[in-house]
């Protein structure tokens, strides 16, 4: 905006002729650049979908480095049928969906409750907990992963769902995001409700939570993206296909040289298209949730 708006205004003196040449061509050039960039960002997704619809593996290999990677020559769901016929693929979709839904569901409740207690109630130890939450935001998961593996191993939690869920429910950064939102809410409504005899739990459930829906959406999306794509931890704690989530299943499929490329693309599409559909539907929230990480500083 800065650049174009300015060009519209500076039209004085000797610069007029040169600028008008530039001005006439600026729009088309800008669009050209933007379209080329759009192609750069979209082509892998298009190729993934187009090639996944090609049932003939020889054709997939022949088409993958040609223009036919972007225009479907065949439309068939054969590859999708094939991968869902494979051991563990349908299971992995179910596992990832279950783990994501449960983690996000529990996470929203646990983190927002904690934030409400910190933002609105006076209790001994509160300031210590706030300090601790802020300090813990900085600890990267990877740096505690090895001792955590030791702990869950002793607990006998390997190859379970809860080993992929429980450690990721509470998150200091999400508590912080909720805390900021709750502190910013006007106190008057809550005070009125208190005088009317409402309990704290009722106020949290019926007033604070509904008023903070945008924050719940933001945190939910952030946590869901994180859990859905999680690869490092499941690699360590899942061995068989029973509780294996999608990213690990993808690695297993991809590193098997006998698996046709068409199937790999179909599997990639299965992992990607639901998230992209949600992104297109709730774009505003996605962007907001990613931008909210800017608060972390």
């Amino acid at each position, binding site marked *: 905006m800065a650049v174009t708006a*300015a060009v519209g205004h500076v039209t004085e003196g000797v610069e007029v002729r040169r600028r008008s040449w530039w001005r006439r061509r600026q729009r088309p050039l800008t669009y050209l650049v933007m379209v080329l960039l759009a192609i750069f960002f979209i082509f892998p997704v298009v190729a993934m979908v187009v090639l996944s619809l090609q049932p003939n593996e020889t054709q997939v290999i022949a088409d*993958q480095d040609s223009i036919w990677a972007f225009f479907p020559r065949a439309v068939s769901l054969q590859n999708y049928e094939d991968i869902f016929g494979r051991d563990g693929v349908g299971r992995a979709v179910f596992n990832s969906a279950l783990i994501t839904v449960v983690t996000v569901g529990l996470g929203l409740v646990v983190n927002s409750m904690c934030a409400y207690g*910190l933002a609105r109630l006076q209790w001994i130890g509160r300031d210590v907990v706030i300090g601790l939450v802020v300090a813990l935001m900085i600890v990267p998961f990877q740096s505690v992963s090895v001792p955590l*593996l030791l702990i869950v191993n002793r607990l006998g939690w390997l190859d379970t769902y809860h080993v992929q869920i429980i450690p990721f429910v*509470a998150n200091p950064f999400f508590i912080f995001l909720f805390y900021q939102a709750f502190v910013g809410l006007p106190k008057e409504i809550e005070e009125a409700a208190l005088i009317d005899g409402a309990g704290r739990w009722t106020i949290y459930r019926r007033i604070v939570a509904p008023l903070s829906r945008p924050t719940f959406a933001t945190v939910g999306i952030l946590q869901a993206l994180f859990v859905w794509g999680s690869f490092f931890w499941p690699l*360590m704690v899942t061995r068989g296909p029973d509780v294996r989530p999608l990213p690990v299943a*993808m690695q297993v499929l991809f590193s098997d040289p006998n698996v046709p490329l068409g199937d790999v693309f179909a599997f990639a599409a299965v992992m990607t298209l639901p998230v992209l559909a949600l992104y297109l539907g709730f774009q505003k929230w*996605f962007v907001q949730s990613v931008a909210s*990480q800017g608060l*972390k500083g």
Partner: protein
Amino acid sequence: MAVAVEPMPRYRRSDRLRRRGRELLQGWGFAAPAIVLLAVFLVLPFILAIYSSFTDQRLVPNPNLPTKWVGLRNYRRLFADEGFRSGLIFNGIFVFVVVPLQTAFALGLAVLVNQKLRFRNAFRTIYFAPVAVTMVVVAVMWTSFFNPSAGLVNTVLDTISFGFLTPERFGFLNWALDRHGARAAIIILSIWQGVGFQMVIYLAGLQSIPDSLYEAARIDGANPWQQFRHVTIPQLRNTTIFVVLSTTILAFALFDQVEIMTQGGPQDATQTMILRLLTFGFRQGQVGLGAALGVFYFVLVVVVAFTQRRLLKEERAVA
């Protein structure tokens, strides 16, 4: 808790105390689930990481060999480890290449889609879309595009250069099979996936710059480039600090795409700290060594984060 700060009428004191007691219980009640989970799954492993980095703790303990204190042995072994050093090198290269490139690219994209143009929302949607694609999928897709003989990237390069850019002539076009090619491939796909995130942060920064600053600059006769140089860039200082340092932290965490595409090869060219962490702590079961790497990694992240805070504070002090 300052009980005596506000002198209250005596008859209301018991009320106040009762309310205080209730809030104490309620406060802990609301916070307890999160506190317990954080204590068990973050604080405890953190303390254990520091402790076991000084022991020869193994993942599967040997009953005949009790775990013992080994002092700094793990740290010495860590810095003597070839793989870990290669990891530091590639993490370093990755930071020095990706951070400036991705930051500049993101700023460029943000300026482009911040213009008053038709379809700008469509362009924003498309540029941001890769952020919604799981990194493992991104790596799988790009691994097939970077196939030296049958990949889209080399076909495009071959075509636009009329057959000049071929793997036979330029070794790095063998991508994952070549030391430099593998590094370049991982850098390219990482930028492709990550730049939309920084673009959104920059977009928010651009929109918070008051129009009056641009008006004043125009009255002073500043051309668009001068406005960008002397208004936009300085106004985006804090955004840039955040973008640069958060990208740096993400670059230290580099793992998913490497594990899928090269597993650290060829000849450790794309080795990373976290890949090594997985090898030590999980594949070789050497918890002590893995924990030492984790502690080192934590210190690195803390240094970056404190640099960020220091820089942001200076800004506040100046302003």
